[in-house]
């Protein structure tokens, strides 16, 4: 009889503990994913990259696709540059957000960097001197939508 009571107590307690552990672990995994998953960190990286480029870009000149699929910002190679001589082009290709960097004249590509992967949608728009990027990242398990607006500081 004592053994049965003990087993019943252990079973109830064990079941309760199991439920708590599973629930806690699930919540933990969800929260950890929301903060540290690839789509989250890549979203931050994309936003910072756009910030860095557009903030240093000339506000006098932007090129943007009619459907918002790409944007081109113009920057200065150095403090000695008297006019824009470098360009950055952001566009989505095969699920990657790419940043192409090159010279304006003659037009030549110097590098193409992959800013982030898992891109399911990326559109750009312009509001005066600010550039807006709406980026949706989806790795199949999690989706992250980044909406960022950057103001160009340079003339």
């Amino acid at each position, binding site marked *: 009889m004592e053994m049965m009571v*003990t087993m019943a107590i252990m079973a109830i307690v064990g079941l309760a503990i199991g439920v708590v552990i599973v629930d*806690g672990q699930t919540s933990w995994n969800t929260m950890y994913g*929301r*903060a540290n998953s690839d789509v989250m960190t890549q979203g931050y990286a994309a936003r910072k990259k756009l910030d860095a480029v557009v903030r240093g870009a000339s506000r006098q000149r932007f090129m943007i696709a009619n459907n918002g699929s790409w944007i081109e910002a113009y920057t200065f190679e150095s403090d000695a540059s008297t006019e824009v001589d470098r360009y950055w082009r952001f566009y989505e290709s095969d699920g990657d957000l790419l940043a192409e960097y090159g010279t304006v004249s003659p037009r030549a590509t110097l590098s193409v960097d992959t800013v982030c992967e898992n891109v399911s949608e990326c*559109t750009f728009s312009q509001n005066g001197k600010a550039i807006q990027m709406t980026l949706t990242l989806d790795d199949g398990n999690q989706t992250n939508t980044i909406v960022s607006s950057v103001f160009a500081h340079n003339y």
Partner: protein
Amino acid sequence: MVSRTCKNKSRRGVTMVGTLVAVVILLIALIGTSTFRYTAALDGRRADAQTTASRVALLLAETWRGLNGDSTLDPIQLAAGDFEVSASSWGGHVTPDGFALLGNYEIVMDTGDPDGLVYYATLSWNDVQAGLRALNINVEWAQRSETAEGAKNVDKSYALTVYTEVW
């Protein structure tokens, strides 16, 4: 024989108590661990909400600055895809003293996220001096609630003031 019987009964009693003690110790350890994880997850969620609020404020500030603090800015037009911006009917918006109200807005970063929070943004402006305008963005949210009645529990805010030249 009598003595042995008594001894056996005593041992069975100790086994029961020992089991219960073990269960209690185990429970204390697991509840402690669960509490730690729960708190960590909750704090992570709060941090995520505050980070998002700051991003919302920066988004509005940069967009508004891009238009030189235009008093006809319509943030609702920023909505795209799952990013939703709408006029707010929440009664808790407060415009800072000396500032003119541009509008009150409800913002949802991802309408497809069932855990997504609603952010309440108050946009206002003030001409500090000729040619210089202060743009104030105050974003508030309910970190304690995820329900449709979250607006009643708004308890956190993030304010950002930026300046722009006015042409």
